[in-house]
C-alpha cells in the first residue's frame, strides 16, 4: 500500500456537493438521484421515515456502498481519493459501533489516528497526545485506561465521537449517533458535536430521528421519502405540518417553544382517542 | 488418532500384552473327515474346532504364512494378505490383516482363517459365517512361537511336520548360541524400529533373542515393559548410552542404513559408528517370529563374531 503519503489537504474547507447520487441495494432503488449542497462548517440534518434512505445516503457519502452520480468535496470527486486520503477527509460514526470489551478507552480513540500513520505504522507520541487531548475535550480524561465494557452508553457514544474526531477530518458523518441514549445524554452529545463543529469548523451531516432535536441543531435539513429528496432547506421551511404529515404518514402538530424553536408533537390518529 | 504410529500399533497389536494368552495345544477327537479331524486346538481366541482338513486357508498374518509353508501346509493356502511377502510363491492378495473385511475374506471360501490381529467384532462375524479363525498374536517368547507352530500343524493336518520344524529351530538356535562367544558383560545394543528412535527392550521377543547372545538393550533403562517393551528413546540418551552395536530394523520402511546413521548430527561420536558396528537388518525378518528367526540370529551372531575376533 504505497499510495498517499500526501498530507491532509489543509486547504480543504469541507464543502460537499452531491450530484444525482443513487444507490441500488438488492435490485431495489434505495436512493434516487439525490442532489444536495452543504456549505463548509454547516450542519445538514437528514430526516425521513424508516426506510427513506437516510442511512444509505450517509453510507454513500462515506463510500461504504456503491453509488451512481458523484460526491464532490471542495470540488474533488471523492472517487479519485485514495483510501487514506479519504479517511483524512471524512470521518464516519455508524449506527451501532462495536466496542471490544477489554479495549482501553485511550486505545479506542487512538484507532482514529490510523489514517495518519503508514500501513504498518503504529501511533507516534504525537498520536498519543492527540488522543489524550480529545479524551479531555469530551470530558472523559479520567476514564482513559478503563476497559470499554466498564463504560456507560453515554460515555461510549462520546468515545466514538472522539475516535472520529481523531481522524482530524473536516467532514463528520453521524448515523443516528444518539438513538441509544436517554433524553439528557442525547442533548449532551449533540451539544458536544455542535461545540466541536464550531470550534473546528467541521461540516456535519447527520441522520436524526428526533425531529425536534433536528430542528434545533441542524441549520439545514433534507427530507427523504422513498429514496428521493422531497424537501430541503432551513428547518422552519421544511418541517411544516403538511409536509411531515404527508411523508411520515403521521399526524403531527408543530408548536413553538418559548425560545421560538420548532417542537414536533406526534398525535394519535383522528377518532382514535380524545382527551379534551 | 495421533497418539500411536502404525509400526507401533502393529507391534502392540501383535504382542501378547494386548492379545491375551498365546500358544496353542490340541486335543484330538477321533472321527471321520480325514485322519485326525475334526480337531480342536487352543489359540489366543480360545478353543477353535476345525471340522475337516482345511484345503482353502486364508492367512492374514505374515508370520503365520511363513509358518504354514514351513510345515508343508503351503499347498492348502488359498490367499494371503498384502504383507505376506514370504515365501514369494504365497498367493498374495490385497487383503489387509489390520482392517480385515469378513466379506472380502469370504470371497475365497476359506475353511480356515489365521490372523495375528483380532479387531473387536471380527471373530463374532466370522463365527456367523461358520469359518474357524485361529488367532496367533505376536509371540512374546520362543515357547509361545513353538506352540503356535504345533497348533497350526494340528489344525492343518501337519502335526508331525510342525513338531519336526520346532525341533529343527531349537537345534539351530542352540547351535548358533553355542558357536558364538558370549559377549563381554556390559555389551549393549540399540535396536532401531524407526527413525524416530522407537526401540525394543530385553523383554520383547527380539530382545530375548539378543539376550541369548549376551547382549543387553539400552532401552531397558526406560523400563523393560514401558510401552509394551517398545519405548521411544530420547536421542541424547542414545548418544550418552553409547551402545556397542546398532541394529537397524528400519531399512526397508525408512531407508535407514549405516551411512544415514553416521550422517545424523552428533551420531558420528558414537563408538558403534566409529567402529562400523552397525548392522542393517531386513525389517520383515526382524519383526516376525516365524521360521526365519534363525536367519536373523545367524546374521547377528556372524556380525558379533566378526567384531569380536
Amino acid at each position, binding site marked *: 500500500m504505497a499510495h498517499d503519503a500526501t498530507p491532509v489537504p489543509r486547504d480543504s474547507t469541507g464543502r460537499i456537493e452531491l450530484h444525482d447520487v443513487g444507490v441500488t441495494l438488492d435490485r431495489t432503488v434505495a436512493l434516487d438521484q439525490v442532489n444536495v449542497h452543504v456549505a463548509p462548517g454547516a450542519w445538514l440534518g437528514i430526516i425521513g421515515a424508516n426506510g427513506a434512505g437516510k442511512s444509505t445516503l450517509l453510507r454513500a457519502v462515506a463510500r461504504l456502498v456503491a453509488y451512481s452520480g458523484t460526491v464532490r468535496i471542495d470540488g474533488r470527486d471523492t472517487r479519485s481519493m485514495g483510501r487514506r486520503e479519504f479517511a483524512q477527509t471524512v470521518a464516519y460514526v455508524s449506527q451501532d459501533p462495536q466496542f*471490544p470489551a*477489554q479495549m482501553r478507552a485511550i486505545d479506542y480513540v487512538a484507532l482514529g489516528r490510523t489514517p495518519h500513520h503508514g500501513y504498518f505504522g503504529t501511533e507516534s507520541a504525537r498520536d498519543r497526545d492527540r488522543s489524550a487531548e480529545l479524551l479531555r475535550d469530551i470530558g472523559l480524561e479520567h476514564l482513559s485506561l478503563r476497559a470499554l465494557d466498564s463504560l456507560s452508553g453515554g460515555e461510549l457514544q462520546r468515545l466514538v465521537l472522539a475516535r472520529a474526531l481523531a481522524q482530524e477530518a473536516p467532514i463528520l458523518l453521524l448515523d443516528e449517533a444518539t438513538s441509544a441514549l436517554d433524553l439528557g445524554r442525547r442533548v449532551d452529545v449533540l451539544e458536544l458535536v455542535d461545540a466541536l463543529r464550531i470550534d473546528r469548523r467541521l461540516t456535519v451531516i447527520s441522520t436524526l430521528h428526533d425531529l425536534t432535536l433536528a430542528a434545533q441543531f441542524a441549520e439545514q435539513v433534507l427530507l427523504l421519502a422513498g429514496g428521493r429528496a422531497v424537501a430541503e432547506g432551513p428547518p422552519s421551511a421544511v418541517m411544516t405540518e403538511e409536509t411531515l404529515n404527508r411523508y411520515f404518514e403521521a399526524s403531527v402538530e408543530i408548536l413553538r417553544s418559548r425560545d421560538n424553536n420548532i417542537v414536533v408533537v406526534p398525535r394519535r390518529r383522528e377518532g382514535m382517542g380524545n382527551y379534551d | 488418532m495421533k497418539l500411536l504410529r502404525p509400526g507401533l500399533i502393529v507391534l502392540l497389536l501383535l504382542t501378547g500384552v494386548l492379545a491375551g494368552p498365546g500358544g496353542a495345544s490340541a486335543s484330538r477327537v477321533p472321527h471321520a473327515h480325514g485322519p485326525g479331524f475334526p480337531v480342536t486346538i487352543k489359540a489366543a481366541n480360545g478353543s477353535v474346532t476345525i471340522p475337516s482338513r482345511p484345503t482353502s486357508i486364508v492367512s492374514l498374518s505374515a508370520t503365520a504364512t511363513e509358518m504354514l509353508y514351513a510345515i508343508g501346509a503351503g499347498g492348502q493356502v488359498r490367499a494371503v494378505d498384502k504383507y505376506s511377502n514370504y515365501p514369494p510363491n504365497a498367493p498374495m492378495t490385497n487383503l489387509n490383516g489390520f482392517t480385515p473385511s469378513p466379506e472380502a475374506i469370504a470371497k475365497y471360501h476359506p475353511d480356515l482363517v489365521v490372523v495375528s490381529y483380532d479387531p473387536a467384532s471380527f471373530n463374532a462375524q466370522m463365527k456367523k459365517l461358520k469359518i474357524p479363525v485361529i488367532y496367533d498374536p505376536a509371540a512374546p517368547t520362543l515357547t509361545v512361537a513353538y506352540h503356535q507352530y504345533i497348533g497350526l500343524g494340528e489344525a492343518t493336518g501337519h502335526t508331525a511336520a510342525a513338531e519336526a520344524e520346532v525341533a529343527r529351530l531349537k537345534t539351530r538356535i542352540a547351535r548358533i548360541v553355542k558357536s558364538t562367544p558370549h559377549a563381554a558383560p556390559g555389551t549393549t545394543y540399540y535396536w532401531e524400529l524407526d527413525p524416530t528412535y522407537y526401540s525394543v527392550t530385553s523383554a520383547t521377543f527380539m530382545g530375548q533373542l539378543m539376550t541369548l547372545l549376551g547382549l543387553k538393550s539400552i532401552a531397558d533403562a526406560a523400563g523393560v515393559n514401558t510401552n509394551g517393551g517398545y519405548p521411544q528413546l*530420547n536421542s541424547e540418551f542414545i548418544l550418552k548410552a553409547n551402545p556397542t552395536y546398532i541394529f537397524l530394523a528400519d531399512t526397508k520402511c525408512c531407508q535407514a542404513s549405516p551411512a544415514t546413521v553416521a550422517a545424523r548430527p552428533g551420531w558420528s561420536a558414537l563408538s558403534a559408528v566409529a567402529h562400523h558396528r552397525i548392522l542393517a537388518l531386513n525389517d520383515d525378518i526382524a519383526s516376525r517370529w516365524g521360521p526365519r528367526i534363525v536367519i536373523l540370529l545367524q546374521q547377528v551372531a556372524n556380525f558379533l563374531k566378526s567384531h569380536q575376533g
Partner: protein
Amino acid sequence: MVVAGVVLVTVVLVSTAMGPADLSLGTVVGVLLSHVPLLHYHSSTSPINQAIVWEIRLPRVILACLVGSMLALGGASYQGVFRNPLADPYLLGVAAGAGLGATIAIVTPSTFSELLPLAAFAGGVVAVTLTYVVGSKAGRSSSGSSIVLAGVAVAAIFTAIQTNVQQQHAADLQPVYSWILGSLTVATWSDVTLILPYVTLSAVVLLAHRHLLDILRVGEEEARTLGVNPNRVRLTVVAAATLGTAAAVSVSGLIGFVGIIVPHLVRLTTNASYRVVMPVSLVSGASFLVLADLFARMVEAPGEVPLGVVTAFIGGPFFILVLRSRRSAQGVL
C-alpha cells in the same frame, strides 16, 4: 513483554541444561562457550557430550522456540482475523491440509525431505482457502462460527483423504505417522535453518499487522472508514500465518492447542490489544513449547512422551475452561 522475555530466556537456559543424558551444568556451559565465535574457548569434555549438547539438545530447544512462537502467533492472528476465540491452525484445517501435503510428499517416490515442507505448505494453503471460501459463503460475514464449522468440515475431508492415501501406501505408514504424531525427537540444525526463513518472514508480516488487527476488532465498516481495507488485511494475515504454521508443522508434525492456550493466557494477563497480544504470544509460545518439550523428554526419561500428547494434556482442560467462561471467550476479541 519484559516479563515474557525474561521467562523465555530462563526457560531456554534451564531446558538446555537439563536432559536425559544428565550432563553437569559446567559441561553444558563449556560446550556452548566453545561455539561462541572469537572466544577460542576449548571444551575439554568428550566428543559425545559435545554432540549431545550442540547437535541434539540445543537444536531441539531452538526448534521448540521457533515452532512454539509460530503456532502461538499464528493462533493469535487467526483469532484476530476470524474474530473467533477458538480459531487456530488446527481448527481451520491448515494442519489437516499440511498433513495431507506431507503424506503425499512422503508416499511419492522422490527426494521427499526437501519437498516435505513445501508440500505441507501447499496443503495448508489449499485447506485454509477452502475453509475461508466455504465459511464465508455459508455465513454472512467472514467471522463467527460458520468459519469454524467450515474448518471442521474441511479438516475432516482432508484427514479422510490423507488416511486413504496412507492405506494405499502401507509401506510408508511409519514415516507418515511419525510426522503426524508431532514431536521434536529428531530435531537438527538443518530443521532450524529450513524453517527459519519462513517463520521469520511470517512473524515480521504478522507483527506488522498487529495494529490493523486491532482495527478489525471495531468492525468491518469502521476499518474501511479509517482507510483500511479489511479484506486485504485478512488475506495478508491468513497467508502469512498459513506460511508460518505450515513451515513449523512441516518439521514438528501436528502439535495442537499451542495456538489457543498461549494467546488466551496472554489476553487474560494483558489488556488484550493485539499490539501487545501478538509480540507477547510470540515470546510466550516459545517458552510454552520449550517447557512442554522439556516435559516430553524428561518425564519418562530416557523414554519419550509425544509432544503432541503433552500439549493436548494441558490444552484439553484449558479448552474446556475457555468454553465455560464465554465472557472471556467472546469479549476480548
